[in-house]
């Protein structure tokens, strides 16, 4: 079965190639896909030609045929079909396996064997906690005398209970929530309160908060009853989901700004929770999906009845400020890394004195001073009159007078059309528009509708996200688009089964993950078989575990962990919490680079839009301007330059080397220990020999005085351009991390070990999971 058929299951796309020889040939294929293709081609040939949807002029409003549109697979409620009986019945450990095996048998693919415990252990550690196993921990699992199922079950329970689980899976959700700590776009203004939402997400995953509840809190937490002040604070913080999107702070037209904010919120809720690109319907009926403009403005009414409280300052060049949410005084929320009262007092004094000073005649100096004054004022917003931090968060709350909104003709603010009653998407429900409680925005009703068991999308979209993170690819390959333009699932029955199972099991992420990682499917090896690879090179049908590259965070965290410097405690607040105003000046003086120097896990690094820390950016970190269900995966020279040349990586390599040297072991044992730390396995005999030869050779050439090849670090590591120089100059003052001991330049053996340690960081194996 060819690629074209497997993927070209969407009508719009097929319309474009219908009639081509390749497609006609594929349609003759006798497999399931061939049959599916024939059905689609027949439909295309009929009068309801979906290819027409491509023509932006064709459907005039009201012509979207919702009844017909409801035929789309994802708009039907999931239905559990008993998995077919498979030939090899002993293979399946779970119903999931039965679905997978049935598809494999149909495709004529033979699954590979199980992964060994060492491979599986490393896989589980990274997948569940985002960190490598320590050598001793891994050995304990490998040597566990218990039967496989028992030993694996125990390990999985342990890892799911680790606080690092929430940091890893919370980060997956932050990709979807396009989390960042600045507004992005031209003005790019810091959002100092964003970290509270980040911590809320991490805590929610650690507590295994049911996903229906988690979604409800993010859409309407402020409208829910709260047990106490602390719960009320958490629920308010949850609405940060709606507040943290990219925004044009310099938009001149305030109504345009409001419409844009609402649009961004609709887009994030739509793609993030429902897997639908609703926002396209802003100016016209959706080009592809059955979402009339009316539906868009029905939802827009909800968000336009909602007040943005993002805690953004009113700046001269970025005037669309908004106040922050005040959390209840008695709420037990973390303080974060606030300025101390003395620092706040100094800002106050500076402001007072600048009020007295006469304006400078130099225009440039005036601009700088205005910026400083504005930023100082913005910073003071976070403190009370006694210079103590206020309890604030970025989020939303209902407007005083919620109301329906009018369709804007072609999305223009000044062209109001008919009023539309607030509501949701008609294609997903044939009920009339919901009753919205008087005086409320409708977010609560929206949240209830999103998480209602009758909603065909929410659970499917979520379980598909979880699947994607564990298997490298979603059952639906377009995790943020389950609409007409999205892909059809590779295993539709399995997806439905999981969606139903998930809702019946309390929407528990941990239960779902546990179920999935205990399957045969997850526990397979990633071994290659030529016959399978020929017909299914992308492993769509799961004949093995896919080989996956670690996400950027895991690569950085693993380097920190292996070097022994990882600070496993959650970071307090964020470096952005003590910033205010536009990010521009911080960019210019290398401050952002300094802010990203940290020994904490990557999830705690400052995420400033358009200024993602190099360590994350280079390995395809999610673009926080967009809902990201699957990150791109590149292999570009910048990644090589980063691991081979970056100053910080070199420092970590030194720490790693010193950690190994400090064990005082024999050469052979040292090499073995280093491999076990970095790669989770001892070296092969060949690698042991290769490594020791490298160490001897490297040390010898380094020792030869004729041409010193290693430049002493103290004299050279200070020339990375202006930003780097600023960063270095300030580092001693601001960086709480103790400086590493300066390396000896007279110890060739250590130098060789450092080069070897860095080489291990640079290997493919370090950043790939088998």
């Amino acid at each position, binding site marked *: 079965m060819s690629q074209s058929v497997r993927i070209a299951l969407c009508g719009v796309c097929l319309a474009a190639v219908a009639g081509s020889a390749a497609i006609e040939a594929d349609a003759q294929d006798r497999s399931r896909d061939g049959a599916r293709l024939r059905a689609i081609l027949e439909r295309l040939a009929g009068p309801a030609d979906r290819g027409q949807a491509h023509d932006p002029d064709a459907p*005039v409003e009201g012509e979207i045929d919702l009844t017909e549109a409801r035929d789309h697979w994802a708009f039907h409620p999931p239905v559990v079909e008993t998995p077919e009986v498979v030939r090899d019945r002993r293979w399946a450990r779970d119903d999931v396996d039965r679905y997978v095996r049935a598809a494999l048998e149909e495709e004529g693919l033979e699954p590979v064997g199980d992964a060994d415990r060492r491979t599986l252990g490393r896989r589980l550690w990274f997948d569940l906690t985002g960190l490598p196993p320590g050598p001793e921990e891994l050995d304990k699992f490998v040597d566990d005398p218990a039967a496989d199922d028992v030993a694996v079950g125990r390990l999985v329970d342990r890892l799911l209970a680790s606080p690092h689980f929430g940091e890893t899976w919370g980060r997956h959700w932050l990709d979807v929530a396009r989390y960042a700590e600045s507004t992005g776009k031209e003005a790019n203004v810091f959002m100092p309160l964003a970290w509270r939402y980040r911590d809320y997400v991490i805590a929610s995953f650690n507590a295994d908060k049911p996903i229906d509840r988690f979604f409800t809190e993010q859409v309407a937490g402020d409208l829910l009853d709260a047990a106490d002040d602390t719960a009320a604070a958490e629920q308010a913080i949850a609405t940060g989901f709606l507040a943290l999107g990219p925004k044009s702070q310099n938009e001149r037209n305030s109504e345009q700004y409001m419409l844009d904010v609402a649009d961004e919120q609709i887009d994030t809720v739509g793609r993030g929770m429902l897997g639908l690109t609703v926002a396209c319907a802003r*100016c016209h009926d959706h*080009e592809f999906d059955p979402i009339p403009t009316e539906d868009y403005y029905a939802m827009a009414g909800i968000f336009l009845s909602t007040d943005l409280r993002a805690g953004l300052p009113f700046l001269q060049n970025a005037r669309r400020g908004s106040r922050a949410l005040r959390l209840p005084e008695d709420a037990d929320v973390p303080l974060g890394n606030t300025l101390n009262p003395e620092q706040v007092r100094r800002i106050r004094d500076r402001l007072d004195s600048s009020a007295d000073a006469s304006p400078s005649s130099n225009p440039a100096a005036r601009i700088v001073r205005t910026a400083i004054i504005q930023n100082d004022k913005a910073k003071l917003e976070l403190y009370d009159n006694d210079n103590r931090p206020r309890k604030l968060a970025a989020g939303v709350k209902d407007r005083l007078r919620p109301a329906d909104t009018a369709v804007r003709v072609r999305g223009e603010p000044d062209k109001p059309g008919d009023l539309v009653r607030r509501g949701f998407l008609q294609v997903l429900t044939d009920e009339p528009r919901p009753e919205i409680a008087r005086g409320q925005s409708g977010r609560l009703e929206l949240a209830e509708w999103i998480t209602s068991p009758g909603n065909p999308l929410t659970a499917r979209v979520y379980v598909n996200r979880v699947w994607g993170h564990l298997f490298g690819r979603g059952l639906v390959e377009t995790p943020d688009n389950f609409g007409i333009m999205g892909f059809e699932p590779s295993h539709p029955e399995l997806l439905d089964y999981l969606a139903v199972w998930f809702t019946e099991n309390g929407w528990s992420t941990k239960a779902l993950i546990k179920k999935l990682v205990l399957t045969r499917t997850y526990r397979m090896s990633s071994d*290659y078989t030529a016959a399978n690879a020929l017909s299914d090179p992308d492993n769509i049908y799961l004949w093995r575990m896919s080989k996956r590259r670690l996400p950027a965070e895991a690569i950085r965290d693993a380097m920190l962990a292996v070097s022994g410097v990882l600070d496993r405690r959650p970071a307090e607040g964020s470096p952005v919490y003590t910033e205010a105003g536009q990010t521009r000046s911080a960019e210019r003086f290398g401050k952002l680079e300094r802010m990203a120097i940290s020994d904490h896990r990557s999830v705690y690094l400052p995420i400033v839009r358009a200024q993602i820390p190099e360590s994350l950016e280079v390995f395809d970190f999610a*673009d926080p301007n967009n809902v990201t269900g699957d990150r791109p995966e590149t292999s570009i020279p910048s990644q090589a330059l980063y691991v081979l040349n970056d100053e910080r990586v070199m420092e970590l390599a030194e720490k790693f080397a010193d950690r190994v040297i400090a064990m005082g072991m024999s050469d052979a044992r040292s090499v073995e220990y280093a491999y076990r730390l970095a790669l989770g396995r001892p070296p092969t005999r060949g690698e042991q020999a290769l490594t020791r030869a490298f160490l001897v*050779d490297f040390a010898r050439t380094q020792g030869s005085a004729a041409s010193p*090849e290693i430049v002493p670090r103290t004299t050279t590591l200070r020339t990375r351009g202006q930003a780097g120089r600023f960063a270095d100059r300030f580092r001693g003052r601001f960086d709480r991390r103790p400086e590493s001991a300066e390396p000896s330049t007279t110890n060739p053996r250590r130098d060789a070990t450092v080069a070897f340690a860095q080489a291990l960081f640079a*290997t493919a*194996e370090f950043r790939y999971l088998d």
Partner: protein
Amino acid sequence: MLNYLKTPAASRRDTLRVAAGGFGMLALQGLAAKPAAADTTTEGSLSTKPPHFAPRAKNVIFLCMGGGPSHVDTFDYKPTLNKRNGESSPVGRNRRGNGQLLGSPWKFNRHGDSGLWISELFPNLATRADDLCLLHGMQTDVPAHPQAFLALHTGSSQFVRPSLGAWTVYGLGTENANLPGFVSLNPPTSQGGPQNYGSSFLPAITQGTPIGRGRGRRGGSLTVENIKNERYATPAQRRQLDFVQKLNAAKLQRDVDNDPVEGMIESYELAFRMQADLPEVLDLNNESAATRNAYGIDDSETEGFGRQCLVARRLVEAGVRFVEVTAGGWDQHFNLTQALADNCRSIDKPIAGLLADLKKRGLLDDTLVIWTGEFGRTPYAQGDDGRDHNNKGFTSWMAGGGVKGGFSYGATDEFGYEAVEGKVHTHDFHATILHLLGLDHEGLTYEYAGRDFRLTDVHGRVVEEILA
């Protein structure tokens, strides 16, 4: 069909293994005792390959205007549109009634010996009119940014497919093994992000190397992070890298088939070689004051894009096959009068400078310069001062490398809404670019998952009419 054009993964790796002097040889046969020198020519699958037929151009500079610049205000002169300004639009049936025709607020004039119509927004570029080949009948499938942007770059708006630059490098290799074959300057992270310079199923080494973090904005800095190893002199670094590569090659052998790891191995070699050459190429300090001025580097309004254009010329000069330069921000739904003028000013002088400089250095004959957005804009208004997306007709242009200069091909209707003659669809555009590079778009295929894939899928027509 040429042999190398159908290379399944396994035999590609064989090539890698036996490539004379290739690191694969070193790594897999354990001959690495003697480290390769810094100027080693271990170019792997980037080595130059013969085209299908005599090429008209060897290199491409692709000026990508993200957002969709308005054609009726720049290159597509529509007197009727101006005359009927304010009337209800007879074209573009809108769902909620028609918009009003919006005449261009800018004057058009004839330029050069050829007399091409160009608006006053491009006073400098207009002096190069006789180099330009205007394509007025451009069309793309989808009037939405992500889809159209991806289609422009990869031919597909829905599936992950190799980028035009990757196909080019796959087909022709590149002339300087110490630099990437495909460079994208300040690429945007949205609208498909890295997919737009990605290699998809083609060998990973063909993917574009992004330089600069401008994210499609003008004026991002063009430095490469970590380009210099501050700790190890080259031989020591080579020794370390050889060790890494031996471990990587061993993994590749264990995995039997692992394209990403194979790509990673090649990208390490490229990164190592880039350290020697790239800083020099990106350093504009050795350019004369006159040159810097010609590109508008002295003026803050044109500096950003001017630097990118000058770097593009230096990259091409140094043997980079395909250079893309992005300037975003052309999405004028509102504020057309101000924003479009600003945008045009920021690129006008730099592009004129680029074309003049290429010509002066004799590079224009071998270099195909392409200017295009992902689509154009409607002749009817959006709001009082804006235009909506238009995929049915817009203008792109080419210059140099084998196209007719001072030439205009195709036309939209009298309002500039829809292409009515000389239609050039995205696939035709791609077919023509490949043709100019000496590649047959139907013959440049890659076998993947049991099927031969092409940049142009089952479409594409070479626009013979514009060939010089």
